[in-house]
């Protein structure tokens, strides 16, 4: 599904990713953990194609194609979804209108018929119910005046509507109380299938209690320095990142 080879990326002239390697297969859930400033959000933004994130070396293959050559909306239509860490507010644009436009843009790309207003509303209302979201969020402007938790649920709502092949969650768990965390995790779990993959970027392991990743990676100084199964996340929680740092330093420098 996703192959990242020797990825180097810069933000405002500063190298953040320095030779990142990662392979995610269809059907898998991977967790990427790491301390602040390790490059987690940079990875998410590079995958989604945000301007200002300059790839200087390496490649990213998505379903065998060069992902980096695609415009952000092409990536989205091809099934790459980013759940934003800080979803932006768009005043005056109603959430339902926005989501319908996005859903239909993606459906048209996949050769599916556009949903009319009634079909769309039926779909979105059912999905909102699953996410325990009030329908009033349909008529409000996109993310405007939403609390942190509401914004994150709104991201998951959009993810379920767009049915991506690869969902990248950028610290979707941050700032959520335990109920919201469970709802969000349930949403992600609903999406899991042998055809789909999830890349969950997080600072804490508590999301992983619900998500149960197939692989856990530690990102440090722009590289994956350690990979393991779920137990690695638990160990990180117990011991912090210091021991890995020492372990990496002890190894021969790259």
């Amino acid at each position, binding site marked *: 599904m996703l192959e990242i080879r020797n990825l180097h990326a810069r933000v405002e002239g500063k190298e953040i990713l320095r030779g990142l390697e990662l392979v995610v297969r269809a059907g898998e859930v991977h967790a990427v953990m790491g301390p602040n400033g390790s490059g987690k959000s940079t990875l998410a933004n590079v995958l*989604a*194609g*945000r*301007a200002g994130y300059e790839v200087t070396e390496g490649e990213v293959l998505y379903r065998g194609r060069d992902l980096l050559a695609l*415009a*952000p*909306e092409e*990536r*989205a*239509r091809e099934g790459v*979804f*980013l759940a*934003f860490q800080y*979803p*932006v507010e*768009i*005043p*005056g*644009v109603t959430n339902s*209108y*926005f*989501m319908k*436009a*996005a859903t239909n*843009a*993606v459906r048209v*790309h996949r050769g599916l018929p556009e949903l009319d207003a009634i079909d769309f509303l039926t779909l979105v209302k059912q999905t909102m119910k699953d996410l325990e979201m009030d329908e009033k969020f349909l008529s409000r*402007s*996109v993310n405007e005046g939403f609390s942190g938790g509401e914004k994150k649920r709104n991201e998951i709502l*959009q993810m379920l509507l*767009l049915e991506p092949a690869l969902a990248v969650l950028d610290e979707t768990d941050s700032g959520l109380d335990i109920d919201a965390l469970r709802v969000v995790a349930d949403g992600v779990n609903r999406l899991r299938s042998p055809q789909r993959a999830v890349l969950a970027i997080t600072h804490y392991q508590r999301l992983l209690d619900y998500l149960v990743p197939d692989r856990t990676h530690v990102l440090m100084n722009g590289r994956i320095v350690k990979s393991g199964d779920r137990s690695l996340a638990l160990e990180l929680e117990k011991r912090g990142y210091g021991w890995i740092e020492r372990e990496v330093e002890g190894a021969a420098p790259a």
Partner: protein
Amino acid sequence: MSTNPEITALTNREYEAGFTTDVESETVAPGLDESVIRRISEKKSEPQWLLDWRLRAFARWREMREEDARWAKVTFPKIDYQAISYYSAPKPRKKLDSMDEVDPEIRATFEKLGIPLTEQKMLAGVAVDAVFDSVSVATTFRSKLAELGIIFCSFSDAVKSHPELVRKYLGSVVPYSDNYFATLNSAVFTDGSFVYIPPGVRCPMELSTYFRINEAKTGQFERTLIVADEGAYVSYLEGCTAPMRDENQLHAAVVELVALERATIKYSTVQNWYPGDKEGRGGIYNFVTKRGACRGRRSKISWTQVETGSAITWKYPSCILQGDDSVGEFYSVAVTNHHQQADTGTKMLHIGKNTRSTIVSKGISCGQGQQTYRGLVEIHQKATGARNHSQCDSLLIGDRCGAHTFPYLDVRNSSARVEHEATTSKISDDQLFYCQQRGLGTEDAVSMIVNGFCKEVFRELPMEFAVEASKLLSVTLEGAVG
């Protein structure tokens, strides 16, 4: 301004044997002097008082200097007022046999605006079958209005049939000496619309929406007068989302509104005159004076405008809040693309007690467009308890455009509360990226964000027009983001 052609078209039919047919064969030679004004008045069989009024305006105009009207942040070459023909008969437009004969650019715009084919044909001047008989629609409409005592006719008609009303209110809001362009209009105006709503009557339909599919040549100098008597209500809609072309470069219209006690006038405009080409050649100079007087207690005047056309827009729909507890509103969206220039805004003059006004202005500049919001909020000394809130936001798309904000606040009463907020920013990269990440193309994303930006204004428009205005905005923005 396209109400005029609609009305004119209608009245032409009603007065088949009247003066309009006489006039059709005639165009006054270019140039302006007293004799031209006398001819105009004579052609229209006007009463002496109206001729005198025109002549006073003309005398005043000759003392005025166009330079004094050039304080706005717009530039245009010197206008040769002697090269304009001040009276030309409304010529019927050449009928086309099919849509294939229509300018492909206009056809494309019709498509984008989603205007039904029959209506497209009407707008473009293509012959249509009798099923869509606008005359019968109009006739039904008129009889309904007549039952309620509502007068809705051409200005010329009103001068003949209701001279007392015209004489009473003409120039009472915009005096003939008001400004260079309004004074010129007062001297030479050819026609326009007249509306009178009797006491207590609520006009049951949007005036002029039913007429917008009619077409005729628009006058350069039109005059509109709307009077809402005590407790009356009217919503008047001027203009059209369809692109309007006209060979006359200068348009100097005057609109006067009078709202008596407890009356409400809602005046909506969608202006989409020819803006000139992408290099800034051609296009209409739209120099309009619009003003409303809230004369009575609890009267209300609300202006809504969507300005996407014209090479130069110069207009400040204003409210004189004389009556206690009267309300003035101004909602505006203005877009300038390519080389368009717009200097627009409003004046809210608070004279009566507890008067309230709201200003919401949304400006969008792209290409090399230049845009200025210019406004005045004046609280007179006796206007106790006056309130104003203004919000002026500008959105910049591209690095060669400009956005300027000049709000004047003059307050002479300590109990007034006046608040003004303004922001200028470019379209947000974060918003664009968010939309793109959800699969939307750049142009759609821009259009969606800009429409969201304008929402507060669009929701003031009558429903069907809000939809078209929103599409019109998207069409105007095409190619703005490269």
